[in-house]
């Protein structure tokens, strides 16, 4: 893949999205930077509460403000155009058109009181200016495209008449209706059974090839990341802790957190082997620890970790880790 | 969907009641048969008697009142005051009526003769009175009405009017089409029933079984009268609409001045007052004394006040040991400042009562009677004398055997003035060592408690009477009636019995006056009731209504002579 040389489609710099609540300020996303290049699949992976979903919603400006606020200095550029502060009208023109999104819960992401055809057509009429008839025909075509049988009939059905997998296909059809250049998929398969997950992942891969769009995949499932992503961003406590290609991350994890995650999974080779868990719990976003935020749970923590950590470049371009010991960890190839 | 809903409502709104206009066709077969005849006769009469060219003719008069004309124009079943007024003066006619001094004068009956022995009255009817459907009003109608109201099957509530009359087939005889004879035992005020009971059309109601009269559509759906106003429409709980009767005899004044007369039912007094003030109604029947000032203050309105026929009293149950002694009852009366109460509660619109003989009555002469004026000192002395003293120092007197001079005063729910009286009495009687506890009871329950002879579950009760022109206390105080509903007080006084008997048969007024005075003296001594006051009747009237006469006879006495100031129409 020639991903490296292509200019960034989406460029996020120092994104900070904070929530101002009664209890205090939750710094859900606290200085996140990454690029999505045209045509690639970038995975953002992390546990719940790490800020991955807030990141994706911030890109589209979909967070309710207040309590959320995208802090000054944050920057989100689409093909060089700054989106933060570009105004609601401009964002509306982009949403569902240039950038579209699918969500975790296919059960609840479709409006239960409208027919699915109408819901797909809505985007087409808004962004493509199609009339009712043309939009409907296009909706039928899109439903066929995402592999729904009998699209002519399905188009007049309500969401509750479809299974979870079918609904996620409808969501995908809706997201693709205006042929976006970027698709943000927020845990698109988490709520689905494995066999259906396999179907959806296959469909996404197929459509991505066909439409040539970039995909920003947000998930907590390391297996899914390993299956479909080109590059990976690992998040922890509102920050990126590691970036790299999917092979780097899984083959040679540089950050102790990434390693811990991988070690928590039951081993395929030795199913009976005792799991290595990460002790403790994710800290509270209102009160992140100072210094390395993973320090309290890190088996390798020593003196020096109480200092704030920056992302450290590790060799190739785009390979970074937020750990001052990462270079030496990678160098020794210490995979515990 | 939403559009349909709103349209549906709109059409409902527009649809109902849209019938408007003329006599509402009730779908009852009786009404279906009768109303076209009325329509035809009225059209014919209008053509025959065109409205005179006089600016006083025309316009719609609106009267507002809190109550429905209960039971409508069927004179044989109703007792309601406003209703009977409409029967007497609006839609129907009585044989005679009273002049302002209370003397009988001809109305439907042109003249009458009384047999020398006082056992027969012969009425000669007018020959120019027609029922509104064109039938002439004749002696058969009178006979029918008399038979109906005296028939027990009818259960006419005022059947007692006819106590001294002969009932059954011998009671009445039709001499010719316009002459009818009524037989009776000689007694005082024997003409009064013919003033109060309106004549009903025999040709329409003659076939109706008497016990079914109450549910007959005649009363509220299509009354056919012979009076100055023709029934046009009745919307229950909303309004009655009457129109001027073009066929009303010229000798009696001809057709009324107003074209239409609307009686509106508005149960809430504040609303009524607002409607009077905003000139949506012309007359507000009987506003409360507290509303009087507002009416006086409005230059367009006039407050009419005049002595009336009702009085308020506190009846004492002399069967109770605390109240058995007349001295105690007199003391209670003297311990109550009735003059102050009249001033305070009625704002001066009323007079203190000493007996139940009202101002319009020929025997009314309070100055000739001893009066129990407010005098707490004498009241205390009287109680002491009767053996009621405060023996334990709690402020309430006891008898020698320890009975406390404590009793309840009951009154019915929803009556502000009675509630006021009870509360003031409680406060004033406490000052003479008498404990009176106001107790409010729902109206029907209260009536049951006091009227049921076996029960008589009360000590004192505040109640009001509307007296007829013929005043008769027999039911209240005669010891023969002790087992009848109205013997509340349980009075058994041979002197009273004797006087009541004498009064009831004394026809001569000057002779009767003496008996009345004697009776009242005994009554004041006995004090079965503490008579409170005769409230004045109040009415709010818009000044655009001219020539209004209102007095003890009622509001509607000369409604046919009212006219609306032409400039206001």
């Amino acid at each position, binding site marked *: 893949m020639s991903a490296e040389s292509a200019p960034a489609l989406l460029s996020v710099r120092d994104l900070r999205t904070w929530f101002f609540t009664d209890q205090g300020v939750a710094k859900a996303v606290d200085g996140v930077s990454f690029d999505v290049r045209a045509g690639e699949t970038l995975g953002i992976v992390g*546990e*719940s509460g790490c800020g991955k979903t807030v990141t994706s919603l911030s890109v589209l400006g979909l967070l309710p403000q207040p309590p959320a606020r995208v802090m000054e200095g944050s920057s989100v550029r689409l093909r060089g155009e700054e989106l933060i502060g570009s105004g609601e009208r401009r964002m509306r023109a982009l949403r569902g058109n240039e950038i579209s999104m699918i969500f975790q819960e296919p059960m609840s992401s479709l409006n239960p009181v409208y027919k699915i055809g109408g819901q797909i057509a809505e985007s087409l009429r808004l962004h493509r200016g199609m009339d009712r008839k043309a939009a409907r025909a296009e909706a039928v075509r899109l439903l066929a495209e995402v592999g729904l049988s009998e699209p002519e009939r399905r188009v007049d059905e309500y969401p509750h008449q479809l*299974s*979870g*997998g*079918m609904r996620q296909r409808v969501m995908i059809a809706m997201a693709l209706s205006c042929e976006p250049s970027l698709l943000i998929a927020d845990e698109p398969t988490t709520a689905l*059974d*494995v*066999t*259906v*997950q*396999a*179907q959806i*992942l*296959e469909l996404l891969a197929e459509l991505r090839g066909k439409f040539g769009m970039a995909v920003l995949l947000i998930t*907590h*499932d*390391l*297996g*899914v*990341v*390993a*299956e479909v*992503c080109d590059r990976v961003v690992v998040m922890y406590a509102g920050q990126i802790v590691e970036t790299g290609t*999917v*092979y780097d991350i*899984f*083959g040679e994890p540089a950050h102790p957190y990434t390693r*811990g*995650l*991988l*070690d*928590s*999974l*039951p*081993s*395929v080779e030795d*199913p*009976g082997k*005792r*799991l*290595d*868990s*990460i*002790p403790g*719990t*994710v800290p509270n976003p209102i009160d992140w620890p100072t210094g390395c935020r993973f320090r309290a749970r890190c088996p390798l923590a020593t003196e020096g970790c109480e200092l704030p950590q920056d992302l450290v470049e590790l060799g190739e371009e785009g390979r970074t880790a937020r750990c001052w010991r990462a270079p030496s960890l990678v160098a020794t190839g210490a995979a515990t | 969907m939403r559009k349909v809903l709103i349209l549906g409502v709109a059409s409902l709104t527009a649809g109902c009641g849209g019938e408007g206009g003329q006599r509402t066709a009730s779908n009852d077969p009786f009404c279906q048969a009768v109303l076209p005849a009325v329509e035809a006769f009225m059209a014919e009469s209008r053509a025959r008697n065109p409205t005179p060219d006089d600016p006083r003719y025309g316009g719609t008069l609106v009267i507002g009142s809190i109550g429905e004309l209960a039971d409508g124009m069927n004179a044989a079943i109703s007792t309601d005051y406003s209703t009977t007024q409409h029967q007497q003066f609006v839609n129907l006619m009585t044989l005679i009526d009273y002049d302002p001094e209370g003397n009988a004068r001809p109305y439907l009956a042109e003249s009458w003769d009384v047999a020398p022995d006082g056992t027969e009255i012969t009425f000669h009817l007018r020959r120019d009175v027609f029922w509104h459907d064109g039938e002439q009003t004749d002696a058969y109608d009178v006979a029918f009405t008399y038979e109906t109201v005296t028939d027990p099957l009818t259960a006419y509530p005022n059947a007692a009017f006819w106590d001294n009359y002969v009932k059954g087939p011998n009671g009445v005889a039709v001499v010719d089409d316009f002459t009818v004879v009524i037989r009776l035992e000689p007694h005082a005020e024997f003409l009064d029933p013919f003033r109060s009971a309106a004549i009903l059309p025999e040709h329409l109601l003659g076939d109706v079984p008497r016990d079914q009269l109450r549910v007959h559509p005649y009363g509220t759906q299509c009354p056919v009268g012979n009076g100055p106003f023709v029934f046009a429409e009745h919307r229950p709980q909303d309004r009655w609409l009457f129109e001027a009767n073009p066929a009303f005899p010229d000798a009696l004044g001809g057709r009324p001045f107003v074209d239409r007369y609307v009686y509106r039912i508005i149960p809430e007094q504040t609303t009524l007052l607002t409607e009077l003030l905003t000139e949506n109604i012309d007359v507000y029947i009987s506003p409360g004394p507290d509303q009087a000032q507002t009416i006086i203050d409005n230059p367009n309105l006039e407050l009419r006040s005049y002595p009336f026929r009702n009085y308020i009293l506190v009846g004492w149950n002399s069967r109770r040991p605390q109240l058995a002694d007349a001295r105690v009852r007199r003391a209670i009366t003297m311990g109550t400042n009735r003059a102050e109460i009249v001033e305070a509660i009625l704002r001066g619109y009323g007079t203190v009562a000493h007996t139940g003989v009202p101002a319009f009555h020929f025997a009314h002469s309070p100055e000739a009677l001893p009066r129990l004026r407010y005098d707490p000192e004498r009241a205390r002395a009287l109680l002491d004398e009767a053996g009621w003293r405060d023996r334990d120092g709690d402020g309430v007197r006891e008898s020698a055997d320890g009975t406390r001079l404590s009793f309840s005063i009951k009154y019915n729910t929803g009556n502000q003035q009675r509630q006021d009286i009870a509360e003031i009495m409680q406060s004033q009687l406490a000052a003479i060592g008498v404990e009176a506890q106001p107790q409010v009871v729902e109206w029907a329950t209260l009536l049951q408690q006091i009227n049921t002879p076996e029960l008589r579950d009360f000590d004192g009760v505040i109640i009001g009477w509307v007296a007829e022109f013929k005043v008769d206390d027999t039911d209240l105080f005669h010891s023969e009636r002790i087992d009848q509903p109205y013997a509340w007080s349980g009075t058994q006084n041979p002197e009273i019995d004797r006087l009541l008997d004498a009064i009831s048969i004394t026809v001569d007024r000057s002779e009767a006056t003496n008996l009345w005075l004697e009776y009242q003296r005994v009554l004041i001594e006995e004090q079965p009731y503490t008579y409170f006051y005769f409230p004045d009747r109040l009415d709010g009237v818009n000044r655009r209504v001219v020539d209004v006469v209102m007095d003890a006879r009622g509001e509607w006495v000369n409604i046919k002579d009212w006219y609306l100031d032409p400039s206001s129409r």
Partner: protein
Amino acid sequence: MIDRSLPPLLSVRGLEKHFPLGQGMLGRAVRHVKAVDGVDFAIWRGETLGLVGESGCGKSTTGRAVLRLLEPTAGEVHYDGMDVRALDRESLRAFRRRAQFVFQDPFGSLNPRLSVGAMLEEVLEVHGLGGANRRDRAVELLELVGLRPEHIDRYPHEFSGGQRQRLGVARALSVEPEFLVLDEPVSALDVSVQAQVVNLLEDLQAELGLTYLFIAHDLALVEHVSDRVAVMYLGRIVEIADAANLYREPRHPYTRALLSAVPRPDPVGREQRERIVLQGDVPSAVDPPMGCPFHPRCPHPAKDDVCGSVRPLLEGDPGGHLAACHYQPSGVETST
């Protein structure tokens, strides 16, 4: 260790649980959801039986029906020689001291109004356990599941998901049972926390000699914790075997598809990986297909009319690898 020569601790035969659906004219149910539709299995003392399947296959209902949290519609449940379905109120209470349940949802399974201490002490009080020092016993239980004594006065909402799941375990253990039904005990938890709880469960099993029925949809996890594994599909067990056998040589086409659909956290060679993607969705349990319930989606090349008409029995080697398929790969003897 596990001694299969003894009679099993729990044996289940022909278990059915049907839920009424809607109401007919006279208030009688016309149709039923056949959530569990004839399930047989046995668990021996000290072992862990894993029960896997996709959502709606009836695995949770099975777990509940076994402990009579739901009254079974039909079938037999024998626990240590007792007929569980015949227990009266008193003996049922006694049974519940021996067999306990751990729930999936760490948020819904704890009474939000009771503090941890109150919750545990109540159980002890009801069963007359812990003597005068119930609070001490409660503290002990907390320590047993890896929580600290000072947690005793806290309320459920003050705990993280993993901690709450520990509380659920502590509550189940408070009556000192010998058998636990674990219903998706870790599926709501993050990966790293999952590993903690799984380790705890394994430690407790070793320490207290517990027997587990482990219900989950995560195949890798089930492989990790189970001695034997049963796979359910549409209210029936389609395959049951030793964990190692089942994962190495799945015999039922559904098991095979399921295993191949699991994304693996290893990107190396992902393009070459062969994956069986099933078509369509799981049919409705109201009206399950005739014959083999899996036949409408079955990719087996030999699928034929028999599959659509004859219900295959659970059969296989006497050694314990049983599958309900007319076309099992190795020539196996038919066991009645």
